[in-house]
């Protein structure tokens, strides 16, 4: 006999939601030797349904893992990405750690705060934007940095940031500097962070200009790492299935010198072969 999923839960979720959450939670727990390791992704998962860590979400995690609601709450309140009240469709985070702050992050935050009429961890009345001061997000060479749903918007100014916020409030697509081709919603983002990818890994760039600053100089000056007589043979590329859309550049066979890595692109040791 199949139990009614709702009968077994104290959450207020309907049967359909319980069934889909349970299927996803089962997949999460299967990734780990100990199912308790699934709690962090599971909290991202409930945020993908409710837009924050709700009472129902906490109960669901507790019931699924066989731990108390207090134990789940203890974890949920420790991490800043778990929101304790409904989040906006977009989290707009301005880095105000020291380096970004002095480069202009403080001015960007203050301008956005005035422009949107909300302070840190507050949401605009239309539910579009939750504004945050965020800590260093590992993009210091692109300062000042703004993150929208944890996608990079590099080298911002008060003007670009307010224009970005206006587009978000209008529901227009915005394009990260380094990220997917558009920013998904907070709930969609939370589902990815729960470990359910959306198939957009191939969108966007591999690197921005600062990331390549040193490499560019090395190329210009012909600098390479030392060569070695012990380098291994290059491995034949293995195609692993579809990459981009049919007919996109991803389908293109190796045709140019850079495709087959000759000249200055050689790995250490290729000279010796």
């Amino acid at each position: 006999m199949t139990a009614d999923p709702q009968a077994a839960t104290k959450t207020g979720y309907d049967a359909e939601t319980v069934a889909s959450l349970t299927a996803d939670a089962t997949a999460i727990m299967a990734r780990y030797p100990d199912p308790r390791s699934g709690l962090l992704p599971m909290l991202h998962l409930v945020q993908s349904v409710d837009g924050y860590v709700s009472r129902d979400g906490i109960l669901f995690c507790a019931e699924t893992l066989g731990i108390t609601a207090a134990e789940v709450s203890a974890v949920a309140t420790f991490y800043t990405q778990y929101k304790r009240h409904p989040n906006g469709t977009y989290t707009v985070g301005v880095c105000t750690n020291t380096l970004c702050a002095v480069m202009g992050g403080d001015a960007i935050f203050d301008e956005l705060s005035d422009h949107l009429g909300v302070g840190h961890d507050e949401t605009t009345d239309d539910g579009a934007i939750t504004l945050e001061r965020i800590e260093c997000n590992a993009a210091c060479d692109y300062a000042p940095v703004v993150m929208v749903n944890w996608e990079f918007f590099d080298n911002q100014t008060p003007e670009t940031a307010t224009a970005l916020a206006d587009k978000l409030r209008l529901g227009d697509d915005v394009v990260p500097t380094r990220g997917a081709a558009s920013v998904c919603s907070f709930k969609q983002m939370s589902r990815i962070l729960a470990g359910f990818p959306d198939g957009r890994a191939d969108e966007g760039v591999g690197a921005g200009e600062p990331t390549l600053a040193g490499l560019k100089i090395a190329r210009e000056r012909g600098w390479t790492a030392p060569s070695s007589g012990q380098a291994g043979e290059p491995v034949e590329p293995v195609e692993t299935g579809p990459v981009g859309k049919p007919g996109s550049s991803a389908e293109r066979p190796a045709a140019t010198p850079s495709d087959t890595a000759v000249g200055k692109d050689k790995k250490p040791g290729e000279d010796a072969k």
Partner: protein
Amino acid sequence: MTTLTPVLTDTWDKDRSWRLATYERAGGYAGLKKALTMDPAALVQTVKDSGLRGRGGAGFPTGMKWGFLPPPDGGPRYLVVNADESEPGTCKDIPLMLASPQHLIEGVAITSFAIGCDHAFIYVRGEVLHVYRRLLNAVEEAYKAGYLGKNIQGSGFDLDVTVHAGAGAYICGEETALLDSLEGLRGQPRLKPPFPAVAGLYARPTVVNNVESIASVPAIVANGADWFSSMGTEKSQGHGLFSLSGHVTRPGQYEAPLGITLRELLDLAGGVRAGHELKFWTPGGSSTPIFTQEHLDVPLDYESVGAAGSMLGTRALQIFDETVCVVRAATRWTDFYAHESCGKCTPCREGTYWLKQVLHRIEDGAGQDGDLELLVDLCDNILGRAFCALGDGAVSPITSSVELFRDEYQAHIDSHGCPFDPSASALFPYTPKTRTPGTLAGAGAGGH
């Protein structure tokens, strides 16, 4: 002159650099193929011989860390990659994983084979969505190509890799806090010993290594230990990513042998922002005592930076010119440490809170005579007394800046305010807003 040595960065400018096929065309996975023909103990020895030291900040010899695992007892052993890059100023692992995640995946496979691990974890911070996408995709590609999964490359070696997203907590970069977090708990550091090598993830023998450390392994295996140790200095061997940020003409990633100097790096990066001069800088993130112009020629290796009174850390070179108020900088870093203190131990939890109060009143013009002594005394009561390195890191910017710029702190107290115009340090002109109590608190309020 020291020249740059692209190894990890070497594929980053290629079309679709993150794809497995791109990586293979550039010689990727030659290291794994070679490793699978070797005795695991010989692999550990190769990494020991290379001199590779942890690239996550502490600089502990990587091969030695692997060698600390007890002999196999038939139970599981784990590799956990620390991809929780969050130290202020540090911005090397995130671009690496965005541009070339296969460097890391190949390193994970080789390391797992070397230490007898059949399930490895990559703990990436949750605040980098596209990096997480790229990592998940890279793992999937590696499975399909037979570099992960069952019977890898016909060797009989099995390996599963799980990419795990954190949820926003700097402390999870501390290796034992990371393990607690990975077990589904609050990310708080554990008492050591036992060290993770003996009782780590699920109380099993575990190696925790930084992204750049693990990504450096494939080339060491492919090219040999001598190749790696031919770069760098006698005790700080190999290549490393140096991340220049702040008031520098061309900020970014510069992959160079350890031992290069900031003067050389600044020369490559076009110098300090035009019309300005270097005031202070961090050699390895905000947790490393600050340096000044006097330290431009210190070789950036573990020993030389240590001898000069700081730490090489993560080679996060944050450059601040003369427009920057050092009190403002230290105050904001202190806000960060107070926010990120996990609360487990009293010296750090309470100490960072009080440091923040004193610093804010100095910066806001309410400083009192004796506040500098109070600050230094507070720092003395945290340093060496906290449960983990976060507390020590929190006092570094304060003690070092008070020592180097005591007059500037005193000027804040004497003149009841900050003598600097904050807009002068920004990259664009603006008029700073004045905040009145009761309205929106603004960026400088502290606390998150």
